[in-house]
C-alpha cells in the first residue's frame, strides 16, 4: 500500500540520474535539451513530492482504510464491505445526504438566478454609483464563513428576540424555532450560503456580461429585437459557459458544506442540519471510527464524480 505514493517521488528522484553526462564529459557540457529537462523536473518536483506525501498517499490510503476497522490508535482490522454496509444502512447518513441536497438547492439555485438579475442590472448603461453597488454586493464574500455563520446564528435565534423572528412577528407571523425545526435549520443555513455567495456570482456574471460585444446588441436593435429577445438570443447563450461554470462550482461546493452547519448547530450535530462532510467529521473525530469515516469519504467522492459527469453531460447536450 505504501508503493503507489512512491511513484511520483521516484520519478522525480530518478531525474538527476537520467541526464547524468557519463564519465567522459564534464557536467557543464550537458546539451541544451537536457539542461531544460533537468530544470523542468527540478521546478515541478516540489509540488509532486509534497503532493505524494500529503495528497496522493492519503487519498489512496483512504480507499484502503474504507475496508478496515480502526480507531486511529490500535491495530487495523480488515472488515471487507462492512463499513460501507454500515454507512449505507445508517439512517443518519441518508439524512445527511438529503440535508446536503436540500440546503444545496435552497441555498444555490436562487443565488444563481438572482445573481444573473443583479449582474444584468449592474451592467445596464449609464448607471450611477456603479462601483458603490458592486462593492457592497461583493462584500459578503470577503467575510469568513465562520463569521457569517456566527452572525446569522445570532440573527436566526429561536427566541422571540432573534432578529428574524422579530421581523416575522412584526409582519404578523409566528416565531420559528430556527435551531431545532426540520426546515428552520435548513432555511437558516441556506440563507448563510446564499448571502455569502450571491455577490460573488453576481460579479462573475457581470464579468461575463461585459465580455459580450456591444455590436451584437446594436445589430439586434437594428433588426428590431425587443429587450426580451435580446436577453433570450444574445445574453443567455453568450453567458452560457459562465452559467455552467457557476453551476458546476456551486454543486461541488454544496456537496462539501461543513462550516456553516457545524458553527450553527454547535457540538450537537443535530439531525436536521447534519451534512455529509459533517457526518464524516463526526464519525472520524467524535466516534473515532476512521473506517466508516473513510467509507463515507469514498462515497462522497463517487457522488461528486457522478454529479460532475451529469454536469458535463448536460453541458454537452445544451451546446448542440
Amino acid at each position, binding site marked *: 500500500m505504501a508503493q503507489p505514493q512512491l511513484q511520483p517521488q521516484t520519478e522525480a528522484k530518478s531525474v538527476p540520474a537520467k541526464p547524468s553526462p557519463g564519465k567522459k564529459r564534464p557536467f557543464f557540457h550537458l546539451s541544451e535539451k537536457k539542461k531544460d*529537462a533537468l530544470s523542468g523536473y527540478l521546478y515541478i518536483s516540489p509540488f509532486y513530492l509534497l503532493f505524494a506525501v500529503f495528497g496522493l498517499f492519503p487519498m489512496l490510503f483512504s480507499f484502503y482504510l474504507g475496508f478496515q476497522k480502526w480507531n486511529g490508535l490500535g491495530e487495523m482490522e480488515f472488515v471487507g464491505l462492512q463499513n460501507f454496509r454500515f454507512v449505507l444502512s445508517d439512517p443518519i447518513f441518508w439524512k445527511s445526504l438529503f440535508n446536503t441536497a436540500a440546503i444545496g438547492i435552497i441555498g444555490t439555485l436562487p443565488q444563481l438566478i438572482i445573481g444573473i438579475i443583479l449582474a444584468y442590472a449592474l451592467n445596464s448603461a449609464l448607471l450611477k454609483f456603479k462601483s458603490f453597488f458592486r462593492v457592497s454586493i461583493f462584500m459578503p464574500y470577503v467575510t469568513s464563513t465562520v463569521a457569517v455563520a456566527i452572525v446569522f446564528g445570532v440573527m436566526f435565534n429561536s427566541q422571540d*428576540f432573534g432578529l428574524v423572528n422579530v421581523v416575522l412577528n412584526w409582519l404578523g407571523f409566528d416565531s420559528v424555532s430556527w435551531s431545532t425545526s426540520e426546515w428552520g435549520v435548513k432555511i437558516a443555513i441556506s440563507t448563510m450560503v446564499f448571502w455569502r455567495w450571491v455577490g460573488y456570482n453576481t460579479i462573475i456574471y457581470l464579468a461575463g456580461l461585459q465580455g459580450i460585444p456591444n455590436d451584437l446588441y446594436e445589430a439586434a436593435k437594428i433588426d428590431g429585437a425587443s429587450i426580451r429577445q435580446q436577453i433570450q438570443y444574445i445574453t443567455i447563450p453568450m453567458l452560457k459557459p459562465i452559467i455552467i461554470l457557476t453551476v458546476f462550482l456551486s454543486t461541488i461546493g454544496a456537496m462539501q458544506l461543513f462550516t456553516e452547519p457545524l458553527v450553527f448547530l454547535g457540538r450537537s450535530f443535530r439531525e436536521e442540519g447534519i451534512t455529509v462532510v459533517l457526518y464524516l467529521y463526526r464519525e472520524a473525530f467524535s466516534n473515532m471510527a476512521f473506517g466508516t469515516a473513510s467509507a463515507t469519504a469514498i462515497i462522497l467522492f463517487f457522488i461528486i464524480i457522478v454529479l460532475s459527469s451529469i454536469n458535463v453531460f448536460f453541458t454537452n447536450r445544451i451546446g448542440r
Partner: protein
Amino acid sequence: MSKTIGKTRKVSISKLFVYLLLLIAAILSVFPFYWMFVMAANHNSAINAVPPAFIPGKQLVENFQNVLSNIDFFGAMWNSLVVASVTTAGVLILCSLAGFAFAKFQFKGKNLLFIFLLVTMMVPPQLGLIPQYYIITKLDWVNDLKAIIVPGMIDAFGIFWMRQYISSNVPDELIDAAKIDGCSNFRIYWNIAVPVIIPAFATLAIIKFMYMWNDFLWPLVVLREESSYTIQIALRNLIDNYVRDNGMILSGTFWATVPLIIIFLLFNRMFIQSLTQGAVKS
C-alpha cells in the same frame, strides 16, 4: 412630441426600478455587518430584549475586553496571519516555478504529469482527510502551524494558473535570446519571467491568502491547543465554550472581520478583478 415624452418616462421608470433593486441588494448585503457592529456595541440584555437594540450602544470596549479574557484573540489573529502569508509566499514561488517549467521547457512525461495535475483538482479534499491527520500526528505536527502551512503549499490550481499566464505572456523569443547570451534557466525565470508575471502573482496571492485565512475544517482537525488556534477556530470556540453572551461573541467576530473589510475596501478593484479572473479562467 408626446411619443418621445412617453418614452423617456418609460425609461426613467425602468431605471428607477434598477436602482431600487440594486439598493435593496446593497442594503441586504451590508446589513449583517452593521448589525454585527450594533451587537458588538451593546450589552447582552439589550440584545436579548424584544425588540432588540437597533442602534450601537456603549459596550464596544467592554465587550471586546470580555473577548480578550476568554480567548487569545491577538494570538489567534497572528497565527492566521502567519499561516496565510507564509503559505501564500510559498505557493507563489512553487507555482510560478512549476508553471514556468510546464510552459517553457520540454521534458519527457510533461503532458502526462500536467494531466495528472488537472485530475487532482477534481478530487474533493475531504477524501484524504483522515490519513492526512494520521501523517500529521506521526510527524508530531499536531498543534503546529506547519501542519497547515506545508500541505497548504500544494496548489494544483496555482500551477495551472501560472502556466496559462506564462504561456501567453512570456515570449519564447526572449527566452531564446537570453539562452544565446548564456543565461541559466533560473536566471531566465528570475529576470525575464518574474517581472512579467507580477499581475498573475497578485491574483494568485489574493485567492490563496483568502482561502488560507478562511480555511476551517483542516485547522479544526489539526490545531487542538489554544495557543495554535487560527482566528476561525478561536471564534468558533468563543461560541461553543462559553455562556452565550452575544455581545461578546459578535464583538469577537466584528473585530476579526474589520481588518478584512478595510483591506477589501482599499483594494476592492484588485480583489474583484482577481477573484473573477481566477474563477472564470479555471
